[in-house]
């Protein structure tokens, strides 16, 4: 602890124990605890207490002070726990202080105990304290275990959860405390405290009250989640029969927590040699309701070491709802059935049909689980791609009313009624269908996928969120329809889709709903990005009105749409797919330049998003050497930077610096951005090029823009500018031939301007600059220092402990003044 803090601490401790003083807010106390934590982690707690006796005094006074705020009480309990985590310090505090805080003499029996903060502080204090065997004796003497157990059912969820975790921690500690080797192979050989905890868990597991079962299961889940030792096997052997008994009940109590426990046990390395856990898990898969069995199945399938038979069972469970849906529809696309058994599980059908919300919930859960599973390397093999595609298509058809239920199937009829127009299931199924594009499917199924996607894109009933998902899924399927090797064009089904897709896109770009227009533009940008090289696509796109519509949307009233339109037309233009003037009166008319329009957006749009998008387009154009930019690059850069420098949006200014960097790299002869992970430093540019680049940078007022940005109020802009100037300086490092102009009037005026800018006077321009002067200024500046300062967060000054203590004391001090005034 530095001396300044040591000096301030006694006053703060005194203030904290004074009930009349207003206590600083919770955040301050949390920060204070954080500080103490760093101190105790870095050094001896005992030393800390000896150096700061005020802390001992604080901990002694707190339980005695009547009317103290619950926050201070909770803080003291947690602080005491932190300090007592070190055994020597624990011994030091054990005599009077710790029992006074955590025992009956403390808040435990008093009125303060009614505050959840205090109960939570008590538990957290004990959690920190319980790090060594002596702590266990202390807790036993205190009789704390009973309190912890009762707090498991606390009305505050935070307290209840913390109590459960403390119990798990104490169990681990008591068994770890056995210094000589591992604890006995029987629970009866275990220490008394461990036996008590296990006994309590056993009792709870047998209790008819579901909340008690849940608490016990949660403690076990935490235990197996953290324990890597052999005693876990003994514990599992003892308690797993009780967990299995729970599975016999109907309905299974605390099913959610039971799933967590089984997954925790399945993942536990300590139980890796125990085969019995797989039997319990297999039993659970068969007994749990589909809604609970699903998460268990997914958890098992993501394991690396799950036995194959169990994986197969889990996969079957996971697929059952979809198998049920497939079975309920006639003419389900694709090969019949999923590997979920020829007969659908009646429980699954019951769960699907019990209510609309249950059906929707189960289907969404299943689809989401499969979507998660799909990209994993350990997913079941063979992956039933075709039936899954069929199932996703069928679900989507049930949702839009085009699926025909199997004759005589009640399930089909009910599903039809439940799923019609259900947006949640539509979104989940489209997400899953999109994910399935990573693998191929039989051509006839792919055709059906395209058909159903097109149905959704065309349907006026598709909600904006469903449409967005449909666009995303379509894009993924389009991108997966890779060109066959040796062929430079799209395959026939994709071309067919495209022919129908573009008119739909046209209509969607004219939708009165802005979200739809926005999704349409995003789709256009992405599809152009990937397919601009395909002759078939180019031809179809240019023959449609999509490019013109995208350009018209630059005037959209909604800023998000304008931003997406800017990106889209930028992309179209980059890829040589410009909009030709619309209407029959301009056939093949002269192509209108897009640059002025986008510059107008940058200069005049009232919202930030379109301006940011314009900057990104310009940067990309510069990188790509876009024709309109290449005509006069310097003029282009100058105009863009001029507009960006005036922008109020920091992201636009930051993007301006990005563009400046690209320009510099190009003029310095380093096309393309460097790989950030390259081992070697970038080579410095040739002196001639440096001079040229600097002159060009001065001409386009890039240097002035960067210098101004260096003192930007928004830190990311200043950081970016600092990086840019460092880059420029480093590039010019070996350049000695150029005469530095240090001391010349030009340099002096630049430095003076920089000083003014630093002081916040941004008005005055720099005027024409010479490269020599720029270089001199760059070399004279402490850019590394500035970069270091900028890397600190903006509140780094306020975040040091001294400042914290001062702030807290200031709060107290203000009250002191007021009191004086009152007298």
């Amino acid at each position, binding site marked *: 602890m530095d001396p300044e803090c040591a000096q301030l601490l006694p006053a703060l401790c005194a203030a904290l124990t004074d009930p009349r003083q207003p206590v600083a807010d919770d955040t301050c106390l949390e920060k204070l605890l954080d500080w103490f934590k760093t101190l105790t982690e870095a050094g001896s707690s005992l030393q800390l207490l000896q150096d700061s006796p005020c802390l001992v005094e604080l901990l002694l006074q707190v339980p005695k002070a009547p009317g103290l705020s619950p926050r201070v009480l909770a803080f003291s309990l947690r602080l005491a726990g932190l300090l007592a985590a070190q055994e020597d310090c624990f011994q030091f505090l054990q005599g009077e202080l710790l029992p006074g805080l955590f025992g009956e003499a403390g808040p435990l029996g008093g009125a303060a105990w009614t505050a959840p903060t205090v109960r939570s502080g008590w538990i957290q204090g004990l959690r920190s304290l319980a790090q060594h065997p002596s702590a266990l004796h202390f807790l036993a003497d205190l009789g704390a275990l009973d309190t912890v157990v009762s707090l498991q059912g606390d009305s505050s969820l935070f307290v209840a959860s913390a109590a459960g975790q403390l119990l798990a921690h104490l169990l681990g500690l008591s068994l770890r405390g056995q210094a000589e080797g591992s604890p006995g192979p029987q629970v009866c050989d275990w220490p008394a405290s461990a036996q008590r905890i296990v006994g309590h868990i056993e009792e709870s597991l047998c209790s008819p009250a579901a909340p008690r079962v849940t608490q016990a299961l949660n403690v076990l889940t935490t235990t197996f989640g953290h324990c890597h030792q052999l005693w876990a096997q003994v514990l599992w052997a003892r308690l797993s029969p009780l967990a299995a008994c729970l599975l016999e009940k109907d309905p299974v109590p605390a099913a959610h927590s039971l799933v967590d426990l089984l997954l925790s046990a399945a993942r536990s390395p300590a139980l890796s040699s125990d085969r019995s856990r797989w039997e319990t898990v297999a039993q659970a898969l068969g007994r749990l309701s589909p809604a609970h069995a699903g998460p268990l199945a997914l958890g098992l399938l993501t394991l690396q070491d799950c036995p194959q038979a169990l994986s197969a069972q889990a996969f079957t469970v996971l697929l059952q709802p979809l198998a049920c849906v497939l079975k309920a529809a006639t003419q389900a696309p694709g090969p019949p059935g999923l590997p979920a058994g020829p007969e659908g599980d009646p429980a699954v059908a019951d769960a699907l049909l019990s209510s609309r919300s249950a059906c929707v919930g189960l289907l969404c859960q299943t689809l989401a689980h499969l979507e998660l599973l799909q990209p994993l390397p350990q997913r079941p093999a063979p992956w039933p791609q075709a039936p899954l595609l069929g199932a996703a298509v069928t679900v989507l058809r049930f949702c839009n*009313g085009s*699926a*025909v*239920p199997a004759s005589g199937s009640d399930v*089909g*009829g*009910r599903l*039809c*009624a*439940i799923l*019609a*127009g259900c947006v949640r299931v539509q979104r989940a199924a489209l997400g899953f269908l999109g994910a399935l594009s990573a693998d191929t499917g039989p051509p006839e199924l792919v055709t059906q996928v395209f058909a159903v996607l097109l149905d959704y894109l065309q*349907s*006026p*009933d*598709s909600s904006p969120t469903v449409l967005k998902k449909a666009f995303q899924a379509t894009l993924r399927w389009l991108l997966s329809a890779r060109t066959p090797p040796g062929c430079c064009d799209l395959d026939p089904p994709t071309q067919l889709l495209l022919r129908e897709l573009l008119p739909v896109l*046209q*209509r*969607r770009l*004219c*939708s*009165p*709903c*802005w979200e*739809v227009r926005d999704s349409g533009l995003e789709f256009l940008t992405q599809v152009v990005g990937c397919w601009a090289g395909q002759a078939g696509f180019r031809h179809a796109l240019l023959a449609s*009105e999509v490019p*013109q*519509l995208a350009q*018209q949307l630059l*005037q*959209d*009233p*909604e800023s998000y749409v304008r931003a997406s339109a800017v990106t889209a037309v930028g992309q179209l233009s980059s890829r040589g797919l410009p909009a030709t003037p*619309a*209407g*029959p*009166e301009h056939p093949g008319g002269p192509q209108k330049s897009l640059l002025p329009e986008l510059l107008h957006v940058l200069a005049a749009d009232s919202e930030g998003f379109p301006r940011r998008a314009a900057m990104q387009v310009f940067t990309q154009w510069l990188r790509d050497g876009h024709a309109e930019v290449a005509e006069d690059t310097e003029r282009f850069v100058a105009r863009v930077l001029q507009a960006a420098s005036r922008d109020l949006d920091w992201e636009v200014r930051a993007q301006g610096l990005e563009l400046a960097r690209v320009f510099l790299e190009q003029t310095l002869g380093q096309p393309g951005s460097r790989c950030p992970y390259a081992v070697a430093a970038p080579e410095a540019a040739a002196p001639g090029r440096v001079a040229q680049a600097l002159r060009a940078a001065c001409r386009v007022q890039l240097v002035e823009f960067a210098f101004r940005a260096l003192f930007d109020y928004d830190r990311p802009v200043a950081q970016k500018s600092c990086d840019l100037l460092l880059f420029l300086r480093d590039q010019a490092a070996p350049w000695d031939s150029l005469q530095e102009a240090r001391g010349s009037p030009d340099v002096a005026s630049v430095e003076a301007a920089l000083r003014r800018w630093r002081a916040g006077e941004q008005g005055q321009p720099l005027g024409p600059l010479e490269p020599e002067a720029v270089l001199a200024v760059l070399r004279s500046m402490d850019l590394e220092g500035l970069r270091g300062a900028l890397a600190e967060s903006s509140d780094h000054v306020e975040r040091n402990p001294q400042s914290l203590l001062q702030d807290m004391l200031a709060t107290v001090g203000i009250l002191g003044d007021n009191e004086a005034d009152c007298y």
Partner: protein
Amino acid sequence: MMALPYITEHTGFTGTVYATEPTVQIGRLLMEELVNFTERVPKAQSASLWKNKDTQRLLPSPLKDAVEVSTWRRCYTMQEVNSALSKIQLVGYSQKIELFGAVQVTPLSSGYALGSSNWIIQSHYEKVSYVSGSSLLTTHPQPMDQASLKNSDVLVLTGLTQIPTANPDGMVGEFFSNLALTVRNGGNVLVPCYPSGVIYDLLECLYQYIDSAGLSSIPFYFISPVANSSLEFSQIFAEWLCHNKQTKVYLPEPPFPHAELIQTNKLKHYPSIHGDFSNDFRQPCVVFTGHPSLRFGDVVHFMELWGKSSLNTVIFTEPDFSYLEALAPYQPLAMKCIYCPIDTRLNFIQVSKLLKEVQPLHVVCPEQYTQPPPAQAHRMDLMIDCQPPPMSYRRAEVLALPFKRRYEKIEIMPELADSLVPMEMKPGVSLATVSAVLHTKDNKHALQPPPRPIQPTGGKKRKRVTDDIPDCKVLKPLLSGSIPVEQFVQTLEKHGFSDIKVEDTAKGHIVLLQEAETLIQIEEDSTHIICDNDEMLRVRLRDLVLKFLQKF
């Protein structure tokens, strides 16, 4: 409404028609437009021989498939319209209208159109709700009054959406996407529509969308003989509008934004294509005009004018006519045809929610609503699903509603009520005997005090014997309660009767006093003491029986 003149003018109708004011005014406009359209093109001759069944079946389709052609009527005249409308009595929402004292009828807002109503028909103990074209969407009319439909014995459900698979919001989106796409390409848009109804909402959406879609410079024309009246009438029915629009009136602002569209010259309206319209007409443009069947009205001219260019689009929004049939005589057509039926009436999901909310004891609906549409037999969601299952009816079927009228309310005149002396039989239940005259008139019943006997006025006239009877008659107390047989037998024994035998009968018990040769027959509503010529014994037994009964 459109058929009203046929009922009131051709069937000998002599009754009263009840309707809300907007219904009458807008109905008049719709009929006026129809009459105007048909009278514009008078026929020199009318052919009727083809209606002969033998001839008709030889005709090509669709003529030969037409149903009941012999009942087809010529369109009514304005005179008939006026006469029909004169029979209407105006009513307001929630107003109670007494029909012959038998039932009360109350119109409620149905949320579908200006002044559109659902009706409650109720007596004192029964309530029937008649739900016709209703909407739960937020459009221009007052929202649907669902609360008043609660506690119905029977809910008659009609007028659901004709296009249950088309969501109105999606269709409006589709309408504008196609409109914008056409106009941007230099094409014209034709919207065949009625002069009132959905057009108000379309114009409102247009108002919001016009600038964002870059359509500010495109003229919108509304052509109808009643266009002006329709647009103006809509603005004056403030009390029939939704809350938002009502509050605008107090600002004061016109409730519908089409006023602003007209003011800024973006929307122009004309009675017909002749006259001013010919001078102002500018293309590309959007035209709203009738009739949606495309068989008459100004729309016919636009179909002829624009049908040949693929740049133009006709967008159907009214669900009443099959757009394919409407277009049939114009084929081949180059113009694009878009079908965006906008029907805001209840769909089956909304019906299901409504029924859960209102919870009627029984639902009665047309047969079509109890099964999925024939073309989509698998769509189980497109039918009414409720418990108990709905009772269905067919066209012209007479249905007995599933309830029995068991009670009538009878009013007691105050002076009679004053004279009653109720006696509490058990806590909360009091009884009193009433002697009164039941007076029934116009299905209302009232108990009035019995007429007082005429006092003798001096013996001029000889008193008639019958006049004395009411006075002389001693009113015996009424008895109530039941006789517990075991206790009764014990009492009999206490009073010296022996050899008592009790037999159970279907209706009660028979107590046999064998020694006295007497029979006491105890039933639920009567007790008989049968003994031969021993009046003393009978009276003794009677008094014992009476001890167990309450008298008042």
